[in-house]
């Protein structure tokens, strides 16, 4: 069920890191091969990380990372293949690609593989005693690794069977108290450490709801035992803390069914380094492509693709990116046509992955796609005809311009953004929802720069019945919710996690969350009348952490505390920081949203979850799009133009043998469903009828509705969102039985098909030629000429029933066909 596959509970060695490895281990020279043959796969050198080893303390081990370099540039992990020998086995020993301390002394490690050899100096010290254990630095990470403090176990708000830890160990003081002092101190037994309840439960010597979390012969057990034996110290306040972690390799191209060791090194606040490979936790986002075990050993499967392995140690995270190309990649990759830089960046990725893109989509498919994606509208039959008969080679570009200039553009994009900004009539009242929607529509109608309208929105104030954007602060009412929504809607940072605990996959803490919430702390609302409020900044207020009451400085994520919080509306400073060109999230999220909208899948998925541990499938492309958006003054249409004109956008949805399984590199167009409103409009358009929307003038399009609660069975079952979550995820594109039944059998749909003023009736009266009726219906519903097969099907229908009835049956068939229901 979970996307992630974690193996936290296998054998591992938890390390205490009091002293440092020698720094600078990343720059060792590799041993050069003597006579590298001419073959591309010949091995030319052997690299060893680290290139000097110091083990301090009798529990210390060092993971090695051994890599051979091939003549063709490929790097292969040989950590478990190379031969390891220690000059003085009395000082250290090598097991499974790791080096463990035996006794104090100095010696040399020799690594040999494929005729190459490397010698590494090894020093062991402090081996006669277990080093002092530090609670926050050593014990807490263990609880995270073993899952003890996860939300499902002792980390949940109510704890588990009376033993409560802070989730992911965000509150060391409380955890220390819980383990050492609570329950009358019965959890530890310093007089006989191994009889401590904590150990008895964790090893399942006593019945434990969570089962056995560690074995008695494990390093983890030794660590806890040593800690209790040392009288369970909290640890030195001045002890260096983890400042960052480094991983090696950071990226690598791997063959299917191969192994790759990951080396994780913690960098401490005093600059010292320590191997934490065994103590870190590893998570993959694509277990079929590359799975990872505890201890950092990754294994690729049979499925080509990409996987990002997140390495987490004490709230610090790093990512290892693996690529597994298709094994049967074309020997000579063709030169592909390039419309603009998007194509170059996508082709480059496809070349690496050994995938060929599909052909260019035909004109009719392209036109329907362009219309539906850009303005949520089907092309009219006469538009299809005009486009198909336009002989000019630059016609796609010209039609892109024409479609971007259409009125429906503002309706469609206001609808999309109304989802994100929670334009919900139930929350805002009619006037509020109407005004916010109208304001949004105006921004798109004028193609106002994205940064400008976001600034206006974030800093809005005044009467909600007059100022549309003010209603954003009525839909979202507390500083905490505003921090959450603004961060997710405009930055793609899901800071919400850090509302209650440290973000599980990111560096964000509660301080970051409340620091952001502080920008909204001065907002007040006064009721003017039913459904109308005055929203204003009443003066800056301090923000405090709920648990400790500590004052949190108001500052943007990774940013500085503004100097004039007391004298200006702090939202101004937030808006400036958000929309600054150097903001790492603002333009990336907007670019990713647009990419997902047009290409069907975000470069980052979910589209509003940007973080280092969730990398884009094509980082250079997302970078390019984001930079382009900022460089173009946040002109959204300009970025759309770039995307729409790319060959990548215009590829066919029909896959070839090499890209059939590709779902992340945009090698072909990914078929998608129409949103509820677009589909309803499309049915009306194809049947030549207009939907009656209660309280709206006849002919009103569903995409132009401001009222998300307008009673409509159709919109409900096709997944119109309730607009209560600041993401596009509320809009369901899942098919249901009710949808299929409705399209096939609903009297409402049947009435449209057989309507006296509808397209069938009109065509029936206008044309005596059956073929012409078929042609027109195909143009109206599918945006293309009828295929041979459709003509045959129609002929069959027309032979079995009166013309009018047969035409209705044919239109029914088209409306229920995949070609109609999907954007191809």
């Amino acid at each position, binding site marked *: 069920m979970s996307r992630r596959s974690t193996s936290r509970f296998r054998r591992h060695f938890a390390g205490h890191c009091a002293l440092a490895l020698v720094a600078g281990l990343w720059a060792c020279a590799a041993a050069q091969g003597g006579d590298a043959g001419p073959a591309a796969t010949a091995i030319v050198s052997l690299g060893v990380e680290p290139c000097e080893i110091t083990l301090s303390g009798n529990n210390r081990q060092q993971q090695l990372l051994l890599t051979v370099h091939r003549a063709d540039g490929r790097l292969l992990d040989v950590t478990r293949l190379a031969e390891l020998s220690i000059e003085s086995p009395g000082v250290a020993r090598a097991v499974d690609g790791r080096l463990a301390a035996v006794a104090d002394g100095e010696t040399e490690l020799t690594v040999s593989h494929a005729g190459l050899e490397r010698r590494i100096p090894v020093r062991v010290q402090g081996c006669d005693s277990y080093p002092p254990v530090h609670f926050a630095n050593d014990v807490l990470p263990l609880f995270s690794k073993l899952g003890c403090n996860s939300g499902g176990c002792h980390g949940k708000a109510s704890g588990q069977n009376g033993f409560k830890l802070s989730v992911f160990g965000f509150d060391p003081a409380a955890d220390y108290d819980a383990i050492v002092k609570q329950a009358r101190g019965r959890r530890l037994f310093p007089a006989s450490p191994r009889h401590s309840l904590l150990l008895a439960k964790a090893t399942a010597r006593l019945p434990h709801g969570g089962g056995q979390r560690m074995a008695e012969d494990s390093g983890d057990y030794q660590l806890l035992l040593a800690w209790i034996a040392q009288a369970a110290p909290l640890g030195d306040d001045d002890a260096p803390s983890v400042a960052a972690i480094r991983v090696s390799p950071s990226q690598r191209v791997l063959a299917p069914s191969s192994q790759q060791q990951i080396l994780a090194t913690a960098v401490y606040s005093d600059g010292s380094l320590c191997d934490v490979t065994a103590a870190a936790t590893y998570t993959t986002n694509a277990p079929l492509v590359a799975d990872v075990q505890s201890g950092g050993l990754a294994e690729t499967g049979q499925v080509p693709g990409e996987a990002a392995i997140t390495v987490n140690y004490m709230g610090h995270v790093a990512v290892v990116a693996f690529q597994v190309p298709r094994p049967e990649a074309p020997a000579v990759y063709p030169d592909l046509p390039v419309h603009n830089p998007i194509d170059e960046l996508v082709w480059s990725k496809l070349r690496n992955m050994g995938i060929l893109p599909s052909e260019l989509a035909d004109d009719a498919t392209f036109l329907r796609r362009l219309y539906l994606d850009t303005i949520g509208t089907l092309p009219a039959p006469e538009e299809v005809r005009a486009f198909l008969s336009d002989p000019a080679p630059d016609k796609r570009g010209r039609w892109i311009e024409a479609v971007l200039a259409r009125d429906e553009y503002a309706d469609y994009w206001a609808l999309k953004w109304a989802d994100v900004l929670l334009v919900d009539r*139930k929350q805002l009242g009619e006037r509020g929802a109407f005004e916010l929607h109208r304001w949004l529509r105006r921004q798109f109608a004028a193609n106002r720069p994205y940064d400008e309208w976001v600034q206006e929105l974030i800093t809005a104030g005044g009467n909600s019945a007059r100022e549309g954007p003010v209603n954003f602060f009525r839909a979202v009412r507390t500083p905490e919710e505003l921090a959450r929504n603004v961060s997710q809607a405009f930055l793609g940072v899901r800071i919400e996690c850090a509302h209650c605990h440290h973000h599980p996959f990111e560096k964000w803490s509660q301080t970051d969350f409340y620091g952001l919430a502080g920008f909204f702390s001065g907002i007040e609302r006064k009721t003017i009348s039913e459904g109308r409020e005055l929203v204003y900044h009443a003066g800056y207020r301090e923000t405090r952490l709920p648990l400790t009451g500590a004052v949190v400085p108001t500052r943007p994520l990774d940013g500085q505390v503004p100097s004039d919080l007391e004298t200006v509306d702090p939202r101004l400073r937030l808006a400036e920081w958000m929309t600054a060109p150097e903001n790492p999230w603002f333009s990336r999220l907007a670019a990713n949203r647009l990419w997902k909208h047009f290409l069907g899948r975000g470069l980052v998925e979910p589209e509003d979850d940007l973080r280092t541990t969730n990398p884009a499938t094509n980082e250079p492309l997302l970078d390019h799009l984001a930079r382009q958006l900022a460089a173009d003054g946040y002109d959204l249409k300009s970025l759309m133009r770039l995307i729409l004109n790319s060959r990548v956008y215009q590829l066919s949805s029909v896959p070839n043998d090499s890209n059939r399984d590709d779902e992340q590199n945009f090698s072909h167009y990914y078929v998608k469903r129409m949103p509820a409103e677009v589909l309803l409009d499309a049915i009306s358009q194809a049947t030549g009828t207009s939907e009656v929307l209660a309280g709206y003038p006849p002919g009103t399009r569903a995409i132009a509705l401001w009222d998300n609660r307008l009673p409509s069975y159709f919109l409900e079952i096709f997944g119109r969102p309730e607009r209560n979550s600041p993401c596009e995820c509320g809009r369901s594109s899942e*098919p249901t039985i009710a949808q299929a039944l409705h399209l096939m059998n609903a009297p409402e749909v049947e009435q449209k098909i057989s309507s006296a003023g509808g397209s069938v009736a009109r065509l029936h009266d206008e044309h005596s030629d059956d073929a012409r009726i078929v042609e027109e219906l195909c143009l109206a519903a599918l945006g293309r000429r009828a295929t041979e097969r459709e003509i045959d099907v129609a002929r069959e229908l027309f032979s079995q029933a009166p013309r009018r009835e047969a035409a209705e*049956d044919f239109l029914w068939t088209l409306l229920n066909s995949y070609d109609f229901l999907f954007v191809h």
Partner: protein
Amino acid sequence: MLPAFCDGIDRRGFLRVGSVAGLSLSQFLRCKQAAAAEGRETRDVNCIFIFIVGGMPHQDMWDLKPEAPAEIRGDFKPIDTAVPGLYVSDVLPRVATVTDKLAILRGLTHGDSDHGRGFHVMMTGLAPGAGDFNGNQNNNQHPCFGSMVAHLDRGPGALPPYISVPNFLNSGGPAFLGAGCAPFVIESDPAAPDFSVRDITLPEEITDPRSQRRQAALRQVNRFRRRVEEISSQVRSLDTFYEKAYSLMTSEAARQAFDIGREADSVREEYGMTSLGQCCLLSRRLVEAGCRFVSIENGHWDTHRKNTESLRELLVPSFDRAIAALLTDLERRGLLDSTLVVITTEFGRTPRINELAGRDHWPQAFSICLAGAGIKMGQAVGATDKHAAYVADRPVTPADMAATILTVLGIDPLTELETPLGRPVQLVSGGRAVAEVLS
């Protein structure tokens, strides 16, 4: 419309084409298979979930306090039942004869006296955060039990896994599980003479041969596209639902399940020709045909005024008849062991009768009932104080109730779901199944 649906079996006999292909076994089913392989007990349990909307008066139906002062005990008197020593209200004479098939939980308690929030907590087991939950179509905070079931086990056959009758139940939505786990809502009262199920029959002007022509044409047109874009999971998934919809239209068993007119008049009358009565009967037909979870809405129980009169004359008689008939009928047909019946509500009603002779909202203590599916029946669990105001013994929280329901349905309440934010949430947080009713 009724005849078109009820007598139309032969007239609308479709050829059944294809099978319900492409549905892979859910993880839940795989777990079930694994459990069976290990020799652990597995069984398919369906659920009929009856929600008394407005607040069911515990002290007037299930938890009478004859010793309390008149303004508290009200007008109802305890009567003997099929189980010696177990009393219910004199307004439940028929239920009194089947208490051997009922477990009454008298210690329900939660903290929310608002209808909408009460719906949410009793439909999902999770107390909602801030907000208005009246008219809540898609529980934004947590999926309801029916959606959890639909997510984990779509059931055999053509019927949707989660059906709501006659209307959508407040907070009966799927939350982040998505539209695929939303209920199939009948939106028609089976007691009404023109009862029909939306969209499962053809529009009036479409004859069977004409529909067959359309379906044949559709298969022809789609065949090519299915081949070229077979890789798209979207297309495959829609395909599956079209197949399902088509089999729902054409499957004899499925259509007959909805066709309440096939029941003998005597059976229909046994349940009572009331909304609740016919909904209960329809639910029995649906679970019999393989639907996993049927929810029934029964409204207008918010007796802020004229409590006694409303209960005696309007509300309880149809309830009494329907529930007694349902339990008797399920047992008679051998379905009681595999069907969990839940009779629940958003809260109870105030101990003291107000000046309008009504009772107001009271979540501090109230009663619900469970039956069937191996529940230990013929007992009351928990007790309230002398005024039925607070729980004196064995409090049961909505989360406990949720854990109980899911456990009986064979679902581990600690099963984790993932929210769109990527946060793992358990089906039930902080609840424990009520051991006293589990066999």
